[in-house]
């Protein structure tokens, strides 16, 4: 019973949200939007609070005294809400930034630089003409795109040709990104269309 009611509420809220492209800002859209924000915020607060209790407070109560350190650091962040004590929050934030930066450097060099460069400059050993075409396409695209961002020299003379080609490659790349974005958004819309029909029992759930 409650499942059915939940489905119909979801169906109705979906239509209220989709009223925006059809009828611009309207009361139905705003109601659904505000409900969404409120419920999301509530779930987020509860989930994160439970997580702090599970990861930190419960072990602390069970005698793991070291857990007081992250708990105090976490509480220090809230000092940014009090203007005269805002400086206190800089210490935990500085720790977070430093840790994140260190971890990022440790992990990023190999996959994002070393592996990517090796894969780009390694000539194909199989795959025939198409593999070679792809290899050269990537090589030319990479060199010309990097040259496009070489702003020390004016893009004239010998630099004019490669930088123009580089710009074309960047446009093709952005087109690819945009195409993938459209695919993602349409898939989400397709999911909603499927849900629309499922609730109406026109297709199986």
């Amino acid at each position, binding site marked *: 019973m409650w499942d059915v009611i939940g489905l119909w509420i979801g169906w109705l809220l979906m239509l209220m949200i989709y009223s925006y492209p059809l009828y611009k800002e309207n009361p139905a859209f705003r109601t659904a939007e505000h409900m969404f924000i409120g419920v999301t915020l509530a779930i987020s607060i509860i989930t994160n609070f439970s997580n702090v209790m599970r990861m930190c407070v419960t072990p602390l109560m069970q005698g793991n005294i070291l857990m007081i350190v992250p708990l105090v650091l976490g509480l220090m962040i809230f000092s940014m809400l009090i203007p005269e004590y805002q400086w206190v929050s800089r210490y935990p934030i500085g720790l977070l930034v430093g840790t994140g930066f260190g*971890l990022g450097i440790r992990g990023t060099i190999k996959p994002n630089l070393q592996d990517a460069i090796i894969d780009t400059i390694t000539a194909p050993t199989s795959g025939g003409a198409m593999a070679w075409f792809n290899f050269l396409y990537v090589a030319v695209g990479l060199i010309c795109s990097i040259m496009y961002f070489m702003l020390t020299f004016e893009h004239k003379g010998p630099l004019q040709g490669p930088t123009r080609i580089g710009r074309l490659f960047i446009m093709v790349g952005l087109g690819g990104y945009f195409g993938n974005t459209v*695919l993602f958004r349409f898939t989400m819309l397709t999911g909603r269309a499927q849900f629309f029909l499922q609730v109406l029992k026109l297709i199986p759930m």
Partner: protein
Amino acid sequence: MSVLSKLANVDSRVFYWILFIALMVPFLSPIGFPITIAENTRELYEGITEDEVNEGDVWIMNFGYGVSAWPECHPSVTVCTKALFREGAKIIFMGPHYDVELTYNKIHDTVREDFANKVYGEDYVFLGYITGGESAIAQLASNIRSVYPTDHFGTPLDQIPMMQGVNTHEDIAGVLSSDTGDYGVHFMTQWQAAYGSKLAEIGIAMNGSTDLPRWQAGNYFGLSIGSRGGAELEILIGELGEATTAMDSISVSHLLLIFAVILGNIGMVVQRRSS
């Protein structure tokens, strides 16, 4: 007024209605567009089946997507869960979205028959929500219990049979990260690059352009891109599901969009010439 001028002045809401109806028709009357299998998807499937998975291996399945991305990620996750269970692997489910519990319930629905033969705590475990981004994923590699002292339901990990002796990246056979954002990258930088862990990505189509070079460079042993990847995996496992059904609808919507772009450009060229 010419036909093109009339079309140029049509209310955009008409196009929205046409689009929404066009999306729904293939669900009511499937067309059956052919689906070819991409190499990255095939390698993902081959990496979680047959000789690549031993009975009793422990894998991590990261639900890095919320409810809104179910159509994109969930079909691939469904197939991968089925494949791993059928090879006798054990699975740790977890996720960085606060609606991770809904996705965990959803996987029980979509993999119902396989879950029926499995026992919680022995064949699979749900650790629940994880927060802390890259730092938490790095810590997970060195000490799972420091990130998850208990499972989602409050049972200490030491009391869960499946988790006996499982505490670091060395005890994990592989990671499948399905996400809409950064968590696949976090596993790549903090697990695959740092320790050489076996990692595959189940990503959304929007991230396909950035994920493909990582698969080509060997950082991911396999890659499924969006609902299309899900449809390919459904064909590979031989059980067609919601992604295959949705592909017709997506294809129709794209054809409509291409048609609209071409029509719009023709209209613009004609209007420019006439003025």
